[in-house]
């Protein structure tokens, strides 16, 4: 199957006209071709260009990222050889930056797949261009998140003790431990997110395969990964079904994953961690930071790969509305958490709050400031319609949410029940290096992904395009969308 012509006619990718025809069958009146619509070839060109055309800047950036990752890996190696003492963790601050980063990255992972599944299920048409980017973000941020517990453990070479493997003493994993739940949850989430991403990718891989020049090195793996996708009617039906079920499945898993992550804290008897609000609070915080992450990434992609025609301001605006909603919800949860412990006036807890404002004051107020600022800013339509401003807000929110995770983990441990052991913790150079390298690792994975697989959900957009048309009401043309299955 080296070229499109070899494919039997009935198994070829449906031409736009065919889809439109189906749409017409579904009862949608086609109007005149809109100015917004992109021709099929142009859509392919724009969407697949990031994959096939690489600039020098890309190489420079990738190499820089790779160097940062290499430095982080070296730091990790140093940590494995020397012991956990190269961090600034101490008695009794046993968790620090790594666990904060873990929670942060799990949080970031939340929006991608979850939002994409929500949007898929709710059939929000504006979802189409952002799906892939968001789903990929989930997988990669989960990969990064999953790395942190691995980096964090004292005896990495024995980490397989965490897995339920048969052993001589028939010793099973301790399922009473939130960490065991956590591991299971992350594993399930990562697996399903990966499958979700891959299933969504299938038609686009096939498209890329067909689009790919014969001599390009990508041809081989694209052919393999396309799993023989022809775009036949049956394949599309199966595809739609799988997508639907996966979306439902993911929707159930995602909140449970972050709830379980929150239980790492909430299930302990540590003051300020031991609260029932942590589950929903973490989920909301996760979606909040995740949406901010999606916005940031979308604006970045749009800017780097000139995807203005595909990722349009409307999409960003819609995302920013979700962000606003989530920021308000997060604010509510934060307030609830604070007010209950303030009102409860438990001496240890109040001491921790005092300590937070005292030792971590700048961080606390930065975090609160950013979140209040973002709520206020997002209230303005002009902000919501400006990709640049949204980008800044996205970055700021993620900074704030990282700080928030840090403030959940650290102040409590530096200032817990036994006052004699109160201490200070400032992440060491090694720790910070690894945390920064993890960021670079995420970006690097993303950058490589862009080059090996289509980052834009071409087939979905095409579906959307096919289902949409301009209707004439008098002399005004209004764009309407339909759905193939209705």
């Amino acid at each position, binding site marked *: 199957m080296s070229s499109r012509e070899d494919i039997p006619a009935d198994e070829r990718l449906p031409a736009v006209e065919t889809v439109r025809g189906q749409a017409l069958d579904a009862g949608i009146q086609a109007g005149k071709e809109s100015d917004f619509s992109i021709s099929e070839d142009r859509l392919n060109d724009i969407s697949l260009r990031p994959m096939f055309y690489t600039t020098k800047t890309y190489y420079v950036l990738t190499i820089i990222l790779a160097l940062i990752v290499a430095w982080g890996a070296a730091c990790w190696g140093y940590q494995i050889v020397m012991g956990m003492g190269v961090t600034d963790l101490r008695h009794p601050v046993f968790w620090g930056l790594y666990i904060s980063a873990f929670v942060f990255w799990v949080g970031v992972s939340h929006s991608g797949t979850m939002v994409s599944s929500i949007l898929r299920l709710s059939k929000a048409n504006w979802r189409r261009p952002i799906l892939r980017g968001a789903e990929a973000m989930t997988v990669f941020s989960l990969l990064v998140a999953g790395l942190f517990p691995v980096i964090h453990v004292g005896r990495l070479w024995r980490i397989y003790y965490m897995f339920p493997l048969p052993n001589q003493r*028939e010793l*099973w994993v301790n399922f009473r431990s939130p960490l065991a739940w956590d591991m299971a949850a992350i594993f399930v989430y990562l697996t399903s997110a990966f499958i979700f991403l891959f299933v969504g990718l299938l038609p686009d891989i096939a498209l890329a395969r067909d689009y790919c020049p014969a001599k390009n090195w990508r041809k081989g793996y694209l052919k393999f990964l396309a799993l023989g996708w022809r775009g036949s009617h049956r394949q599309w039906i199966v595809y739609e079904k799988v997508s639907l079920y996966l979306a439902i499945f993911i929707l159930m898993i995602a909140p449970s994953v972050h709830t379980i992550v929150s239980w790492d804290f909430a299930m302990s008897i540590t003051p300020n961690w031991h609260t029932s609000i942590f589950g929903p609070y973490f989920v909301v915080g996760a979606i909040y930071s995740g949406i901010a992450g999606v916005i940031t990434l979308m604006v970045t992609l749009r800017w780097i790969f000139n995807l203005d025609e595909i990722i349009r301001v409307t999409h960003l605006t819609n995302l920013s509305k979700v962000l606003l909603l989530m920021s308000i919800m997060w604010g509510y949860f934060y307030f609830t958490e604070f007010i209950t412990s303030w009102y409860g006036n438990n001496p240890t807890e109040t001491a921790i709050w005092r300590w937070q404002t005292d030792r971590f004051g700048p961080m606390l107020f930065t975090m609160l400031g950013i979140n209040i600022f973002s709520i206020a800013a997002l209230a303005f339509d002009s902000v919501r319609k400006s990709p640049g401003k949204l980008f800044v807000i996205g970055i700021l929110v993620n900074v704030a949410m990282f700080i928030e995770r840090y403030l959940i983990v650290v102040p409590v441990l530096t200032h817990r*029940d*036994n*006052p004699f*052991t*109160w201490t200070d913790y400032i992440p060491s150079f090694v720790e910070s290096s690894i945390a920064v390298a993890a960021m670079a690792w995420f970006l690097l994975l993303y950058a490589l992904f862009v080059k090996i697989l289509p980052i834009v959900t071409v087939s979905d957009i095409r579906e959307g395009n096919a289902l949409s048309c301009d209707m004439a009401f008098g002399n005004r043309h209004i764009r309407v969308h339909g759905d193939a299955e209705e």
Partner: protein
Amino acid sequence: MDRRTFMKLGGAVAAAGMTGACGQAAQKIIPYAIPPNDGVNPVEGWFYSTTCRMCDAGCGIMVRTVEGRAKKVEGNPDHPINRGGVCARGQAAVQQYYHPERLKTALKRTGAKGNNSFTPIPIDEALNLLAERMKTARGKGSFVIASDANDVTSAIAWKILGVLGSTDFAVPALNGREKHVRSMAFAKGLGTLPYYDISQLGFLLLLGADILESGFSPVHYAGAYGEMRRGNPVRRGRMVYVGRRMSMTAASADRFIAANPGSLGFLSMGLSHEVFRIAGDNGLLKKIPVSLKEKWKSALGDYTPQMVMEKTAVPAKVITGLARELLEQMPSQAIPGDDVVCHSNGVDSLNAAAFLNALLKQIARDGNLLKKPDLPEEDISFYLRMKGFIGVPEASHDYAVFRKILRQSAKGQTALGMIIDANPVHTAPRSLKTAEALAKTGFLACFSSFLNDTTRFADVVIPAAHFLESWSAQIGDYPVGLPVLSTIQPVVKPAVGVIQTGDALIQAASKAGIKLDVKNQEEVVKSLVKRFRPEMYSIPRKLDANGVWEYCLRNGGWWPEPDKSKLSPRYVPPVQMPAVEKIKIANPKYAGGKDYGFNLHLYKTVNMGYGEAVNLPWLLEMPEPMTTLSWDSWVEINPKTAVKLGIDNGDVLKIESPFGSVEAPAFIYPGIAPNTVAMPFGWGHESFGRHASGRGANPMALLGDFPAENSDEPAWRAVKVKIGKTGKKRKMVREGNPEGEYEAEVFQL
């Protein structure tokens, strides 16, 4: 079988497996979580009874050895000094024994004195060098500086010193011992250290006495303290501390009373005044002759609460209250400590305290206020007879002897000096110029396990065996209500390359032609036990000489039955009333004029003492109990003073006295008087291995030739200093949290 069938079958098998396994899962998993024997397979070891020599208190210990290696020090529960307890320093003996820096060869000086340049030589050669000097040193001035005067090694050294025609045997320590002894001679007519049995007390008044950390036997007093507190189920002994600093002992007291420095003699007299007055009012003095009462009245008359309040800053009401408590909660006692002793008016103040104690005891006896058991009287004469076996006179503890040695050495008048396990260069006030004097000694032989500040000036260093691999015996330094002979035996095979100090001395002496009629240290110990046998009145009579020897080794020595009711002290002196009319408390005098605004309060910490074992990581890392600091020395300063002077924790301060200055990081400590700074002894070694060298500041640099009245020992609590910031800052290893330390209510204590 096609694929589908295979999958079905596989599923069925898996399901069957699951069903089978589920039923017993919990029973299986949990017991398997518990390893057999909890994963511990203990080894049997041998316990050898011996005596701790980490300080000279002489606690009985049992050392657990496994496969010929010393593993752990345990207290000997039968030993009357420590009753099973061991302090942190004693526990660290095993680490000292296995210290990587132990000397394992003799050393001969190659460079100039003080340069620390040595070449290793065989021990025999070193002993030859020493022997040559012994031959020529006869009558030309020789001395011994030791860390203890009560053990067999000292006995051997003393004997050799005698043959060399000298009596200059010095045991220099800034512990006020000679003043204590002098005061006891004044109060009881017999010059020994005082002993206070606090275990049965109803009320204990500590006059700056840090008995639990820096007294003559902290472990013994700690045991008695525990007994005083909770030994008696119906009554808890009360303890009040008067002093300048919240020491570890003061922290254990029920009440802390701040008093001016050098004023505790006045307080003792004032308390005697009040006790006398109140007891008289209550008719408790009826048995005392009127003439005596008149004498006391006139002697105590000046020390009214108002007058004492002016001197001590203790409110008059509190003084009267204390006197009342002393009377009401009999048996009661006052123990004078370093605050009393080591001030300019030390001896008189001690005498005043001795009078207060005698008065209290007299009243208690007369008024039948004591419940059984009575306070046992120490058997001083017996103890003195025991000490006679060693031979080193009590006077060797006088600073005068040490001063004399230094004086003569500085003039080049000593041909031979031997330093046994002591480090006077570090532990003597810098201004006495110990180092300079030792550098001028004709030939200096140091018997030491480690290279230290003093061995720098040695001509030969002889690698002394550790006490865990030595034979020795010690007469309990002062009676603990009982006479004690503690034996020391090797618990492990001696290391190669070391020699017991006594053996080295005997061998060198015999090479020098000095006849001692003993072959080695072990034999001296044996003969000592043999000579002792007639005195051992509480061991089975039928034991032969060998039996007694084994008895001693097994038990760690000999002492009478610990049961006091069975003990019949041979000598019970009546309550001797000191001649109170001779006690005249002088106002405290200070070294340092008006420029010097702060009182200097030096003290021994419980883990470091005078720094003998400051090279042990266990002790270095052990947080000092009151400050929770480790790994470095510090200077304590009151929080309010610190605020006034803008000093923060870790600011390096320059402490300047008229005699010298040191630099140490500030530690803001709420338990120190505002006009006082406190520093621990023991730090600041110039040369003591890599752990101790250059670590911390040695406050000996601040002390000078400022003898107390009636004594040669420097009055080291009567020094004034000024402090200044250097602008430097130092990290302090502190276990506690400065804020958290005030949050005890979390634990509802």
